[in-house]
């Protein structure tokens, strides 16, 4: 085994790696993976309305909260993104009895129905499918 052969082998592996990087980031992803909107943009209006240490969180889609539940669902992502945007308010999942409750729905048309089902009263809408509510 010579230095030149080892050098050539590693450079060849590096070349394959570079081609893969270029393909993924500059050909494949731009074609198939839409650019994400910053999470905060969706929750901007809500953040100015929510104060205090804790709030309830209800949704029309379930989130994974215990072992065995799929953590990659849209409902889980909505809950965790709301938590990220609204930190340091701790969002208590599925708690409709808290003083203030965040309602987040995947289908904006279902917001009123969700509030009715959970006996919540609308305080303010904060964008499509997002609202601040309180118990009736």
């Amino acid at each position: 085994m010579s230095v030149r052969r080892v050098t050539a082998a590693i450079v060849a592996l590096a070349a394959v790696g570079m081609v893969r990087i270029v393909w993924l980031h500059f050909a494949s992803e731009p074609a198939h993976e839409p650019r994400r909107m910053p999470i905060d943009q969706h929750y901007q209006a809500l953040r100015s309305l929510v104060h205090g240490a804790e709030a309830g969180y209800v949704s029309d889609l379930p989130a994974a909260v215990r072992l065995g539940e799929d953590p990659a669902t849209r409902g889980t992502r909505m809950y965790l993104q709301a938590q990220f945007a609204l930190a340091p308010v701790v969002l208590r999942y599925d708690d409709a009895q808290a003083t203030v409750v965040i309602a987040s729905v995947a289908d904006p048309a279902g917001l009123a129905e969700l509030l009715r089902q959970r006996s919540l009263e609308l305080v303010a809408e904060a964008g499509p499918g997002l609202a601040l509510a309180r118990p009736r």
Partner: protein
Amino acid sequence: MSAVAIALIGAGLVAAGFPRRATDGVERAYRAAAAVALGTGAWSATYAAWRLAFGEAGAAKDICLAVVGVALLFGCRRRKTEEALPRHEPAPRWLWAVFALACAVAAAAFVEHTFRFPDGGWDAWMIWNLRARFLVRAADFRSAFSPELSFLAHQDYPWLLPGAVAQALGQLGESRVVPAAVAAVFGILTVAVVALAIARELGARWGLLGGLAVATLPCFATFASNQQSDVPLAAFLAIAAALVASARSRRELALAGFAAGLGIWTKNEGLLYAICLGVAFLWRRRDPRGALAFAAGALPCAALLVWFKLGVAPPNDLAAFSTAGSLAANAIDPLRWGELALLTLRRVVYFQDFALWVLAQTLLLWVFVRKQPASVLGTALFLACAAYGPIYALQPHRLDWIFRTSADRILIQIWPTAVLATIAALAKAVVRPSQGSPRFSQVPGSPPV
């Protein structure tokens, strides 16, 4: 003040860790890279200790850190010059060009990925930057670890990265640029540490090859831009590994222990790696005092982790969801072990994330490295990989899900250290007799494995 504190404590730690003066530019650059990484890590770890002790951390913390740095700088002034190492063959110009191209490609991928995913990877906003936001926004920092948060927020994770991001957010203002910049710094440091650590011992050619192996692993740039703790952990582990492998004094071993300790405070896996490095050193070098120095270096951050885990953190989800029954059932389930073996084998040829690097590394291990004398780093990596077998098999989640979401991260954490160990073995095999034997990662007199 924070930048001054990071610079002074980093320089002080390096002054304390290296008893002799640097002889050349490569050595100085290596020490500078280590100083930035260790300084940033110490800055964040001190922040955590300050908040655990007093609730708040202000300028006083940075002043104390800077004073300690100055004290170390003056207390550990080096009088002797580092002994000259054998001259190594310089790298050809075309190899420098390939390395520069690889860095440019990785940097471009980092920028592109950061624009495409402005909040970083899923774990960044679910865990690391969420924690940073709590730390910088909450009146009571303990709410960052509230058991009311989703278990997916992993409130039990140590918070070196969130601590660094939170401090930067607090001083520079809340902006998505801040966590991205911190991620970029750790990505650059990881490549730099590997390339320079190899170059100082084996010459520029090998250093560039090591740097290439890190920078062109396809998922490296992606993970760096994901703003998660895996690349910072990889950086601290690589510093610790490089120092352990090349240590000529116990002070260097203590500094290696400190770097491993920062890994402990970066992610739970850091504790496993620190233990594996310490055990491997004791096993291969038979130097209990050196191992003690390593452990003493790791002690401050290990103590910080214990303080956090016992005082603030809720139980780890793996522990919270496990029962004696589930552990026993998983341990004796042959299908689970078979599934784990299959998943691991499939990952070796996972071209999307690893291109051909992991396949090449596996083949090299099989046909070449295993016939070489055992090294501290090789043993440490073997121990760590062996430990992951039962960890994966016994954990309570669905095996395919947890493997799919974590295996690449573990690879990223240990890849720079694997490159350090492999390049050293390769260099030894091809070194010419006139050049002498490189000391890097070698264990004189150890039997072949």
